[in-house]
């Protein structure tokens, strides 16, 4: 004890001497740094009323500050604390941690979004100004879908039903899905779009809540029975976003994400079988059908049939299936003729499967043309409704300038140009030489020219509320 106290006294004495030395050193240095110090003081002119301080006092203050800080640090004598101060650090989280946080955030956001939509749809104000209606149709089906082909498919991370299915208790072995290919997804996609057209699900929040609850029940039951395969193969929504994701510039690769030209990796893709071809054709048809039913010509066609006494939902169902059948038939016929014009033994099914990615830019372009004005126009209403979900705001919309319709037409044409390029690349990948690939595209070009003209006509039509639904 005594020894340590002696040592303490000696140390204290050394510190005192050192402090005095530091002060003296400060005084001695005063004339040298005086000029600089005054300049610095002068530069703080705006800080307050300038007071004239003699140079030597400025210099002594500087020295005193250094000396004083030494005295302060000397109060800290614990080795551990000194080490811990120097060892403290701020590290960036690793890529794996960031990915996990982003994934968990997306999952939580998706589930919260679903719960919020359901809650607001059930208890919020009635009518199409309800926040849930706007979020689902403007925010999600129009806006979010556009991000899956303009940026990349983020749905596997965001999909609230997938997250919820992961939380379900394990029920032993999952059953294998019966081998129906993409047919169930195709039927479900056509069914959902038919429901959207014939029911007030796009305007009535209560109906929307029922449809979302129904979809939730079916999806969770399917995922609980068949596991993740359900989202890979049966769930139409996941499949739509996955197919649109093929077109996107951001692509997932084995070592992270890659930036590609939009549509650049489409020639590298192909449909696995005829059912997957049918799904892509159905995707193209439903985007077209969505626009077709709101044209005056459509009303003129359906009106008399409904007046005769045929129930309107039945007419729309027949039209949905007939249109899909026509599109699929035209595409298959084109593939069969392509076999002839290309002079090849490659089977018509193989040609269908390889060329079908070329339809995706058209579906995406048509979706964008159809919904761009809708999203831009209703975005103020969406923001107003989301920030105040339980009150009933006035549905405000941006009045779009006249030239906006030209953008929609240009998008349709642009999408077809991308499709022509993709089909060209696919043909050169599939057939040898240079003339055979070109000739293989003849039947597809004929079908596409007819389709372009039809879809441009639909996009340019004035909006008419579908009658009798």
């Amino acid at each position, binding site marked *: 004890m005594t020894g340590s106290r002696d040592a303490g006294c000696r140390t204290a004495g050394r510190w005192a001497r050192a402090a005095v030395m530091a002060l003296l050193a400060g005084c001695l240095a005063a004339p040298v740094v005086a000029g600089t110090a005054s300049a610095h003081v002068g530069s703080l002119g705006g800080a307050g009323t300038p007071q004239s301080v003699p140079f030597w006092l400025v210099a002594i203050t500087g020295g005193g500050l250094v000396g004083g800080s030494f005295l302060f640090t000397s109060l800290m004598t614990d080795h551990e604390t000194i080490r811990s101060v120097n060892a403290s650090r701020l590290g960036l989280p690793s890529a794996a941690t960031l990915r996990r946080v982003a994934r968990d955030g997306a999952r939580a956001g998706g589930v919260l979004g679903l719960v919020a939509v359901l809650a607001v749809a059930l208890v919020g104000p009635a009518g199409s100004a309800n926040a849930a209606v706007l979020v689902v149709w403007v925010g999600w089906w129009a806006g979010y879908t556009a991000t899956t082909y303009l940026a990349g498919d983020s749905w596997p991370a965001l999909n609230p039903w997938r997250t919820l299915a992961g939380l379900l208790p394990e029920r032993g072995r999952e059953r294998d899905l019966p081998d129906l290919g993409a047919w169930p997804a195709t039927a479900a996609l056509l069914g959902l779009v038919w429901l959207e057209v014939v029911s007030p699900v796009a305007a009535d929040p209560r109906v929307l809540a029922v449809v979302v609850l129904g979809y939730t029940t079916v999806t969770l039951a399917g995922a609980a029975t068949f596991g993740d395969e359900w989202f890979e193969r049966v769930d139409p929504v996941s499949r739509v976003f996955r197919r649109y994701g093929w077109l996107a510039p951001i692509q997932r690769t084995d070592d992270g994400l890659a930036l590609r030209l939009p549509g650049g990796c489409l*020639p*590298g893709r192909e449909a696995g079988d005829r059912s997957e071809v049918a799904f892509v054709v159905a995707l193209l048809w439903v985007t077209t059908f969505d626009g077709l039913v709101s044209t005056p010509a459509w009303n003129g066609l359906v009106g008399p049939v409904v007046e005769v006494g045929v129930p309107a939902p039945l007419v729309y169902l027949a039209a949905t299936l007939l249109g899909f059948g026509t599109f699929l038939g035209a595409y298959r016929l084109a593939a069969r003729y392509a076999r002839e014009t290309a*002079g090849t033994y490659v089977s018509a099914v*193989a040609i269908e499967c*390889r060329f079908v990615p070329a339809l995706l830019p058209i579906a995406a372009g048509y979706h964008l043309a159809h919904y761009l004005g809708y999203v831009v126009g209703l975005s103020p209403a969406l923001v107003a409704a989301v920030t105040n979900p339980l009150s009933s705001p006035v549905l405000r919309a941006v009045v779009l300038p006249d030239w906006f319709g030209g953008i929609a037409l240009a998008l349709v044409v642009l999408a077809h140009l991308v499709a022509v390029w993709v089909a060209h690349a696919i043909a050169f*990948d599939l057939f040898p*030489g*240079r003339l055979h690939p070109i000739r293989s595209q003849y039947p597809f070009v004929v079908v596409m020219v007819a389709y372009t003209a039809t879809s441009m006509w639909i996009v340019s039509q004035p909006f008419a509320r579908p009658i009798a639904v």
Partner: protein
Amino acid sequence: MSQHSTVPHDTDRPAASAATDHDPPETAVPADEEPVTCPYCGQPFRESATRALHVGEQHADAHSPAEGEAYESAREAESDELFIYHLRVIAALGVLYAVLVLLYMIVLA
């Protein structure tokens, strides 16, 4: 005859020709036709010129000198045909342009 020609499948295709990594496409040959087939992957073709083009493009590092020559001559013949074809394409573009211009002139007059 190069030794590679007997072991076509263990050679790496050059990156340039392997634009995409699809499997060989499924084919269907009518029962009454006798196709020529690729000696490396077995794909059937209607004409030997098409097969020569296929071998030259897809099996560039495996084929024999004779097949190389067949590829060159098939490509040569195709180039001649392609020249005529391009003339027709230009003519068709001209017609398309003229028809559209005429239509606009009539409609806007």
